[in-house]
Structures are given as C-alpha cells and as structure tokens.
C-alpha cells in the first residue's frame, strides 16, 4: 500500500512540475507582457521607465531564467506578488480557493447523490420505461452547457420565484452554482453507474449469489454495488478536475468569487504570478484528489493493492 501511494505521489509531483513548465511557456507565447499591457494606455510614460519596471519584475530575463527564479522562490514557499496591486499571490489564492473548493465539493456531492441512484435504478429496471426515461434525462443533462443551465436556474429560482439570491458569496448563494455544476455531472454519473451495474449484474458471481437464494437486497448491496461503483469512484477523481475547470464558467455567471474567475482576470492582464500560482494550486488540488481516489480504489479493490 505504501509503495502504491509512493508511486502515485511521485507521479503527482512529476505532473505538477510538467504543468508549471508548460504554463510558463504558454503564457509567454501570448502576445504582450504584463508591463506592456499595464502601460499600453498610460500617458507619457517613457520606454526607459517601462523597461525599468520590467527589469524590477525580472521580465527582462530569458524565459528559462524567469522559470528558474520562479522555482527558486517556490521552494521557499513564495509564490510572488501580483503585478497589478502588488499583493502576495498566496494571499490572493488563499482568499478565493476555499470558495472554489466549496463549490466543487458541493457540486460533486449533488452529482453523486442524484447520479448514482438514478443509474442504479435504470440498471435495475433495464429496458423498461423507467430506464429509458432516466437515460433520456441524463442525455439532456450532459447536453446542457453550464452557462445555459446556470442562467435558466438563475431566472427561475432567483428572478421568478425569488427564493435565492442572484449573485454573491453567502451560504444561500452556493446553491445555484453548485446545482448548475452538479446536475450536468449527475447525468454523467448516472450513465456510468448504469452501464457498470448492468455489467456486474450479468457476471457469474452475482448470478451465483442469486442462485444460492440470497436476498435480492443483500446481493445488490454487497456484491453488485461494491463492484459496480469502482468505475464511479475513478470517475469522481476525473470529474473533480473537470468541475474545478467548469467552475470558471459557473463562477462568472453567479459572481462566485473563486479562483477560476481570478485566473480569467489574470490571463487578460497577463499577471504571470497569479496565473502560475493558480495553475500550481489547481494541479496540486487535482493531483491530491486523484491520489485520494486511487487510495480509495485500492481499499475497495484489493487486487489494485497487490498489483
């Protein structure tokens, strides 16, 4: 088990490192550096002054040197300061990351809570109208873009019914963005659960359990669900990364002050330290979740541990 976790951790760090290299290369590939953009509509600033600001930020250095400087600071726990405003990047991220995590976790909770029972019921009633109806719903859910679903929920629950606030960051404000993210992901979980359960239910060990005369509920709970949920658990890890990404759109619609929105603003302003800090945090969260999921997977399926 420890070896298994060690391998996963090593791969996780490798992933994060590759991500930081790629991001550094990509942000420099986009036209315009942050100082150029900051001073683009500045009246009368001389090229010498602009160059001085670039030097003070280390932007006059070749990209590999800039990267090494960044990594050096990173190993000292320093993510740098924002180019606009001069705030510590860590502080800016720490202020907003909990909002995004709260949104993604709540959305995941909604997705699993709705998607897994839906898929299970569809599998149990395979080929019936219930199955067809539920799968139709799930296709509709997958097909709905976040921005459309978000606006529809906003119009209905906030504008028409007046039950929930339109925007902001309070407790009630979480419901609509989490529903938007959760519902479309619930559809994915429903389809995956259904196909996995159908597959497991047709296997010999399940048939044998039924043939032995075990109660149906016991077979479904102990044999079918445990084996059938393995792919769902794996999918939770993958979907969490997608949810963090999807949160960018949802955060914009509902003015949810998360890291996704922060990253979009930073990209427009070419605020490199924020972009790098965001990607680092984002990949760290995704890697941690993936490791947790892998560990959970190993707990659920002893064959993984042995492998």
């Amino acid at each position, binding site marked *: 088990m420890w070896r298994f976790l060690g391998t996963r951790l090593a791969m996780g760090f490798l992933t994060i490192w590759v991500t930081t290299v790629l991001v550094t290369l990509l942000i420099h590939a986009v*036209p315009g550096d942050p100082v150029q953009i900051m001073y683009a509509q500045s009246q009368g600033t001389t090229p010498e002054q602009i160059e001085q600001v670039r030097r003070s930020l280390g932007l006059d250095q070749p990209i590999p040197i800039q990267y090494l400087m960044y990594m050096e600071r990173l190993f000292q726990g320093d993510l740098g300061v924002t180019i606009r405003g001069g705030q510590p990047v860590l502080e800016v991220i720490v202020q907003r990351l909990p909002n995004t995590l709260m949104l993604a976790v709540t959305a995941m909770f909604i997705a699993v809570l709705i998607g897994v029972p839906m898929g299970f019921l569809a599998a149990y009633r395979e080929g019936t109208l219930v199955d067809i109806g539920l799968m139709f719903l799930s296709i509709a859910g997958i097909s709905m873009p976040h921005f459309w679903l978000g606006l529809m929920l906003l*119009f209905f629950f906030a504008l028409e019914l007046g039950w929930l606030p339109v925007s902001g960051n309070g407790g009630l404000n979480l419901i609509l963005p989490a529903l938007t993210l959760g519902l479309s992901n619930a559809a994915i979980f429903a389809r995956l659960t259904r196909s996995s359960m159908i597959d497991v239910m047709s296997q010999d060990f399940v048939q044998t359990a039924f043939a032995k005369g075990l109660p149906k509920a016991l077979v479904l709970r102990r044999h079918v669900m445990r084996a059938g949920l393995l792919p769902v658990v794996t999918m939770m890890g993958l979907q969490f990364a997608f949810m963090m990404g999807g949160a960018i759109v949802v955060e914009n619609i509902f003015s949810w002050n998360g890291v996704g929105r922060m990253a979009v603003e930073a990209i427009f302003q070419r605020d490199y330290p924020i972009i790098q800090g965001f990607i680092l945090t984002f990949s760290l969260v995704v890697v941690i979740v993936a490791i947790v999921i892998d560990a959970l997977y190993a707990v659920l399926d002893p064959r993984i541990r042995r492998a």
Partner: protein
Amino acid sequence: MNFTRRSLKQVAAVFSLSSALAAPVIAEDIVWARYGDIDSLDPHRATSTLSLQVWSLVYDTLLAMDADGNPVPHIAKSWSSNDAGTEYTFSLEAGVLCHDGTPLDANDVKYTIDAAFNEATPSLTKGSWGPITAAEIIDPLTIKLTLDSPFVAMVPFLADSFSSIICDTNGDGFGTTTAIGSGPWKLKSWTKGDRLVFEKNADYTNFGKLADNPGAPYEDGLIITVVPEPQARLAALKTNEVHIAEPPFDDVPMIKKSGELEIVVAENTGQNVFWEFAIHRPPFNDVRARLAVAHATDAATAINLIYGDLSIPENCPISRGVFGNDQDFCAKYRPAYDPEKAKALLAELGYSMDQPLETAMLVWTGGNRQKLGEVFQAQLAEVGIKATIEIMDIGSLNARVRQENENKEGTKGSMDMMTWSWYDPDILFALWHTPGAYRGYTSPELDAILDETRILTDPDARKVKVQEAMAYLLEKAIHVPLYTPGWEWVFAVSPNVEGFKVAPFVYPIFSDIKLGG
C-alpha cells in the same frame, strides 16, 4: 391527526424559514454592480475606467470638472500661473479632512506629486502631470508647482481622478487594504474580485464636484460589487439586490419599453472609438487604402443598428465634451461615407471585387463591439475589402496593434477599432507624437503641431492648433473617428433610486442618491 404544541412550532418554523427564503434580498446600502473589479486603490497604479470611477469616490482632486468638462475650483479654491506658464500656485480650502481625521493640506498634495514622480515606481500617468520639477509648500494651504516648460494640459488633468490627492498618512497596504483620501466615501473593505464596501464620509464638503449635495452623501453606505454576467446584473436589478448596473445591450429597448428600470446614458464621456492602421507596410502605408476604408464605413448606420440611440457617430479624433471638439469643423476633413469613391481608390491601387484588399480587423471584445465589427466587415466587403475579424481583450489588442506597427514585412494589412478616452486634446499627443503610443504614424510636421498644443496658454490659439492637428489626422485617414461613447456608459437604475447622475468622463455620482420606494 394530533397536533402537539411542539409539532405546531416546527411547522411554524418551517413556514417562516421558507418565507424568509422566498423574500427578495433587498439591498440596504446603495449597490452598484459592474462587470469587473478595480486594479488598485492607488491612483498611480492603474488606468482602467473601473478604477478611475472608484478613485473619484474615495479621493478629492485639486480641481473639478463642470458639466461642460471645464476645470473649476474644488479642493484648490483658486489658482494662478506666471505668464510663461511654468509656475502654478494653488490655494487650498481650509478645514478639509482626510478619512482618518487628519487635515488635508499642502503636505498631502506634495506627497501625491512626489509619489507620481517616484523614480522607482513612477505613476502610470506620470507624463500627464507635465514636466513638474518641484512642488513647493509655501504655507499649509498654498502649494507652488514649477514646470520645466509650459504644459497647459496639466490644469484639466488636476480635475481628473488620475490626479487624486492621497493623504500622507497612507502607509503599508496602501492601494490594497488602505485608501485614505478625503472624498465623499470612506473605504471599509475591498475583497478583490468581489466587492468594495464604503461608508459615507460624514465630514465631507463638496466644493466643486457636480453633485448637488454640498455635504456628505445622503445614504450611509455604498457597495460596488462585481457581477460579470450581464443577464445576472439585470436579474439582480429586478430583484432589488442591486440598484445600479450596466444592462445587457440587447435588452435595453425592452427595459425602456417596460419602464421597470430607468436607463441613464452618460454624456461627454471623452471616449473615442476609431479606425487606425498598420501604417508601415502595404496596403495601409498608402493613404488611398486608408481613405478607401474611411469612405466605405457608414458609421451612422452601423451604430444605429447595434446601439440604437445609445451611441452617436463622432467626426473628431477627440470626442464631444473635450476641448477643441467641433463636429462641423471635423466633418469638413473626415472622409465621408462614399462607397463609389472607395471603389475608385481601390481600383487605383489595383484591387477589385475579384481581387480584394485583404486585412485583419482587430476588435476589442465586449459591449457588442463584435457585432458592430461584423456590420463594418459587411460594409467593407461591398467595396472590395476583405476584412477578417479578430476579437481580443483590450490587453491583447494594445499589444497586437503595436506588434502590427512594428512588423514592416508582408502585404496583408491590419486595421483596428481602437478605443481611448481622455479629458483633454493632449490625447492626440500620446497617440500620434513620436514615438506614438502604438509606434504608428508619426511625422516631424505633425510633431511640431502637437508640441504647440501643449504650450499655447491662450485657449483660442490652442484651439486653432488642436484643430490643425485634427485636420491633419483626418485628411490623411490616420485616425478615422467612428463613434462615442464606447464602453461602460449605459446604466440601468432601479426605480427606488432617486438622484443618480453621471458626470462627464463617466464618473457616476452617489452623493445625491436617496433610496426610497
């Protein structure tokens, strides 16, 4: 069925909870929703309209703008200059207090100017202060500024929020967590990306700003919140979570028709949207190609189609409300809509409908500008110009335009729908005087004209020179004005807001607002 007292209480609790949930969220302070956040609370660290608007609430300026955009006394009750225009002396009002209770005096003015000219971290608008060589405190209420050479644009600059007076008690955290000024609203908190919270400055005296209210704001608090999605802003207005916001453009006719919300359009914004060209390579290094674009563009029709009556065509390179703007004068020099003339010019250059002039058309995203770009694209296609639209954020646009001007190779053209706003014709100097904001067109002849516009202290003489510069830019189709205003100028206002107005250069005023309804 038996109801116990306890179960009845539980039912009552559930009902009261659901009615609390169902009740619309009513804002108690004034709430203004905008699409984005400020960059900084430090007036020397940003240039965005979003930032400027906030500084105008927190800080005071020496002078203020009247409704026509002319500088008038404010914190400085009077000012004078020597004949050479190289020394300005300002007398300050007594009794003005910073938000921390300390008096605002000449020390604060000097502190502000020294910060703008700090060699290590110069203000983004350092050049607009002019060639100031010294800020001398004559007495606590008198300050003298000495200039290296005359610079007439300094006076209107001192009425703009770029020159906000920063109290010298601002210490660590200035610009991010602290912003001590003497304006009508005191900063309580700034949650970056989310909201700015203000309380009224009860000690405030309005000496020259356009608010009718001579003292402190009527309402206790003001919240400026970020709501990026236009439909969400509209929904928040309708549910009374928000009092003032920029509505989705496409919904403005419906809003007006329903009468549910009031639409307020800012006037005299100084915003100028115009064509400019990559001038150092073909095809736009030839004036005929630039003139062809200008003659092929029917701005009035396009603007009406996309913005209705919310925006108007502009003939001058400096927009309405700015010193020197004269529609009739500019109309004489601006190439008028004339597709036949455009075709003839293109034919002279060897282009035709079968062999069109090819160009990229760079457009700033948002504000329905992409739709406007499509209308212009269709108009250009009618005369044999094949424009490929490229939509980008303003940062990319600024960088790309400069890149296009620096690229002198190739034959594919590049033109862009650029947007600038300024309170003085000195904007022309920034754009077109060597080396040029985007390294575009410059010439010694134009430089000489623009140099003069900075030093002529007589307004009439300066106006003549400004018009000379405009005629030069228009005749050569270097700067082809399209329309004004261009961004953040439309406000939808909740019916329970009384007294909202917008000062020139898109500065909303909140001191006069009374919430009712």
